[in-house]
């Protein structure tokens, strides 16, 4: 037990391979955020004006959804650590349901923007808004796929309190998706 304990503290939760991926993804998102901020400083008026056109309410709702979903995943990890596979699967299911709500709201946002005739080429602000939110959107889908896979395995009792690296791996990725959105929302929707 002590040996496994030192192993735990050696690496962050989950499979270390996912962490290499997480750091790389954060790097990409980070460059995107900074590109946005510095491009904005060249053209503050355009960015401020276009920003007003965004639906802040749906953005905020999505933030709440994602945070809560992340919290549910935390509960799922806690459940499997107590060897409660079914409970873990249920928390994961709740997180997945919220994630699909995020997808739905985001799609609604994209459609309404698209119906205004706005695209990547409209102006720099929309280029960033669409690039970053769509890139993040794809990550939510990817995260959902991972969570679904983990949930199915958990349901079949594939994890235990001894061996649940898979759950932690999926959870770590999902928290990353959440973390990125927590920066993205105030940056793109609110800050002016």
């Amino acid at each position, binding site marked *: 037990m002590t040996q496994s304990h030192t192993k735990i503290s050696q690496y962050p939760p989950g*499979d270390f391979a996912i962490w290499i991926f997480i750091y790389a993804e954060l790097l990409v998102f980070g460059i995107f955020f900074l590109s946005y901020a510095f491009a904005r400083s060249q053209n503050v008026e355009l960015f401020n004006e276009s920003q007003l056109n965004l639906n802040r309410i749906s953005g905020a709702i999505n933030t709440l959804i994602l945070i809560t979903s992340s919290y549910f995943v935390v509960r799922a990890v806690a459940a499997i650590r107590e060897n409660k596979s079914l409970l873990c699967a249920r928390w994961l299911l709740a997180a997945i349901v919220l994630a699909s709500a995020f997808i739905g709201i985001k799609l609604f946002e994209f459609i309404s923007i698209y119906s205004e005739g706005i695209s990547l080429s409209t102006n720099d602000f929309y280029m960033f808004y669409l690039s970053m939110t769509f890139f993040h959107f*794809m990550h939510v889908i990817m995260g959902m796929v991972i969570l679904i896979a983990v949930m199915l395995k958990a349901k079949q009792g594939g994890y235990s309190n001894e*061996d649940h690296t898979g759950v932690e791996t999926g959870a770590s990725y999902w928290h990353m998706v959440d973390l990125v959105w927590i920066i993205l929302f105030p940056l793109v929707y609110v800050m002016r």
Partner: protein
Amino acid sequence: MSEKFTKSMARNIFYGGSAFFFLFFIALTFDTTAKLPERDHRENITEQVVLGKKVWEDNNCIGCHTLLGEGAYFAPELGNVYKRFGNSKEAIIGFIKSRPVDGIPGRRSMPQFNLTDEELDGIAEFLKWSSEINTANWPPNIQG
């Protein structure tokens, strides 16, 4: 206790990540091709332009020149040569026609390709059309 850094997870990330980013690339390409008509002025691709591109390829012009910055770096950029030659097709045709068969002693020279008048007109039309593509303001100046 299982390994904390497993090959199977690394493999999943490779396959999943690659597929993910390739899909994304396809999505962006899709958007690009949808936007292209506004930028490449394809309505101006006449029969002459099509012939010109063929002549361009059949004589391997890209083996010395760049076109929109891509190709060999031995001879001048031709994406904007129409403008550099004073918006003149005749100047382009005249230049190509007048290349000496045996070259210029000690200097780089374009070969004499013995093109027909129709082909010459085609290549000039092709270069004219190329100069009208929206290239985000590239090259920085007329020298290419």
